[in-house]
């Protein structure tokens, strides 16, 4: 097995035994990036010298007796997370050349835990999108089929992990931006509960929804990364001061007696038959493992999409007011200060970001605030109550992550509403602020299908446990995209 194919768990075992060094591992992943990324295009920025320097440092720490949880593990970071001294663009032309003077809290924590940072991954501009096609730079390709999208907005991170261009990665999830690309690229991913991970240094999109999450090639890896990045941070007043459980201890392959609810509103007309089939089979597997499965109703599900597309753009329109060409990034001066704002923002933002700023500004504007923004916030309450009620009866809910597998590049970009509809299963949990975990659970048309496991606020251990038990009982997480001319592997798996 090539070193870049290792999971964190496998790599950690070899590093501990001294069979490999972090420098060797990091070099193998950098070579993989060098060989493949011209096709996948997962990275906006690769920092090989820094990575090798950090790998050397990790090897020295290990030689000195250190065994930090991610010591020497090469990881990728979504380009919406600030990295001191490394360009951070958010996939936007308006931030081209911006070099943050500080690290996000999650970066400080990853570095303290010994992680080696490979570079910054592509994203839809300011994390607004479902395909990376809204990136101001280029589109990332799905490693399973290069003519398809990797999902978004954290498509670069998901594609990098799927392609062996990183062992794990950080993403961010506002309405599904970790979960949807995890499903599309066939990797594991978690969107923690809102408030579980510090947002300090995460460039803001919609502040009441944004949460940093993690991708890995298996559930245990996601648990390891989450354990490092979770926790209270005085620099983020919305991070919650609750103890961080040992997530690796939650990895128990036993879910006997666990009550799992299947929301009927998530199996609706229009869902791709192969996706539904994979989910139904996965649910049978959970039942076979001893879970007590029953149907549940979340009656306000269909209102999540309109509520989300009023609330998130409203918050975004306020957050993105800071890009004025004065403090950083693109600046196109005009005759007056106001002309400078209009020029810089009009030319610096891409079409989707401008669309959402317009939508949000409208929803907040005089005369429409009550009908749109306030109304959407009330609907948010109803959606949250649906989940509160469901979690009185169930430990976890299981749903498809998306109604379809990864779509073709270019297929939906001209019709924003059809793009928004790809997120219908991830938006409601975001509005409720709960935990969502995704694991691969099959293939449809040769493309990965992801199962979404939802648990109540701060119930990450339960989500990880269900995901882990399922993963240990199935082989889906072992499939790799046919990137090395080994298309025959995929054929075998399909049968």
């Amino acid at each position: 097995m090539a070193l870049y194919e290792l999971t964190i768990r496998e790599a950690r075992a070899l590093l501990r035994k001294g069979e490999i060094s972090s420098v060797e591992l990091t070099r193998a992943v950098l070579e993989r990036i060098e060989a493949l990324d011209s096709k996948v295009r997962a990275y906006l920025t690769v920092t090989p010298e820094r990575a090798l320097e950090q790998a050397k440092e990790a090897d020295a720490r290990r030689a000195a007796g250190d065994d930090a949880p991610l010591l020497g593990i090469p990881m990728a970071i979504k380009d919406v997370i600030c990295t001191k001294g490394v360009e951070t663009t958010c996939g936007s032309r308006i931030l081209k050349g911006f070099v943050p003077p500080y690290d996000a809290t999650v970066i400080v924590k990853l570095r303290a835990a010994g992680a080696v940072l490979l570079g910054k991954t592509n994203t839809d501009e300011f994390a607004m999108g479902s395909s990376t096609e809204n990136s101001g730079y280029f589109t990332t390709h799905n490693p399973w089929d290069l003519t398809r999208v990797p999902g978004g907005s954290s498509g670069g991170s998901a594609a990098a992990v799927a392609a062996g261009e990183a062992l794990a990665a950080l993403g961010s999830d506002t309405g599904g931006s970790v979960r949807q690309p995890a499903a599309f690229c066939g990797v594991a991913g978690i969107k923690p509960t809102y408030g579980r991970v510090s947002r300090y240094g995460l460039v803001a999109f919609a502040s009441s929804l944004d949460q940093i999450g993690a991708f890995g090639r298996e559930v245990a890896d996601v648990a390891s990364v989450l354990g490092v990045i979770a926790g209270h941070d005085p620099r983020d007043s919305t991070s919650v001061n609750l103890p961080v459980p040992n997530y690796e201890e939650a990895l128990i392959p036993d879910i006997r007696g666990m009550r799992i609810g299947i929301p009927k509103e998530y199996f609706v007309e229009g869902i791709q038959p192969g996706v539904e089939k994979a989910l139904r089979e996965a649910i049978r597997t959970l039942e076979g493992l001893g879970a007590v499965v029953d149907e549940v109703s979340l009656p306000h599900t269909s209102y999540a999409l309109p509520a989300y597309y009023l609330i998130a753009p409203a918050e975004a329109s306020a957050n993105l007011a800071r890009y004025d060409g004065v403090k950083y990034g693109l600046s196109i001066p005009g005759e007056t200060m106001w002309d400078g704002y209009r020029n810089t923002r009009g030319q610096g933002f891409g079409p989707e970001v401008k669309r959402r700023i317009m939508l949000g500004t409208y929803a907040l504007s005089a005369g429409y605030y009550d009908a749109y923004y306030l109304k959407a916030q009330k609907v948010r309450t109803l959606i949250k109550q649906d989940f509160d009620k469901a979690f009185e009866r169930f430990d976890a809910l299981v749903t498809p992550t998306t109604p379809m597998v990864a779509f073709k590049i270019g297929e939906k970009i001209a019709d924003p509403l059809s793009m928004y509809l790809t997120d219908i299963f991830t938006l409601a949990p975001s509005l409720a602020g709960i935990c969502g975990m995704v694991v691969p659970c099959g293939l449809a048309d040769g493309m990965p299908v992801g199962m979404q496991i939802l648990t109540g606020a701060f119930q990450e251990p339960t989500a990880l446990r269900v995901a882990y038990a399922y993963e240990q009982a199935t082989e889906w997480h072992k499939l790799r995209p046919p990137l090395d001319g080994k298309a025959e592997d995929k054929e075998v798996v399909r049968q």
Partner: protein
Amino acid sequence: MKLTLEQVEHIAELAKLGLTDEEKEGYRVQLSAILEYADMIQQLDTEAIPPTATVLPLRNVMRDDEVTPSLPVEEVLANAPDVEDNCFRVKAILG
């Protein structure tokens, strides 16, 4: 909800976005379609429902007023397009 071109121009001005005529017309059509879809939420009776601005029970998070080190001014200004005397330089706001 069908938007007029004047409304689109008003929103763009509130958001200080300089748009081309083509963009204005595109957003007029697209935003109208999105808002029409969003009008679905008007069907729900939310008379007695309080709004959720945040899912957290936290309110008014306070900290001690202690002096801690700040970033060096030159690092903060390093990304600025135009700087003078340790300040961001902007065009005159008045007059």
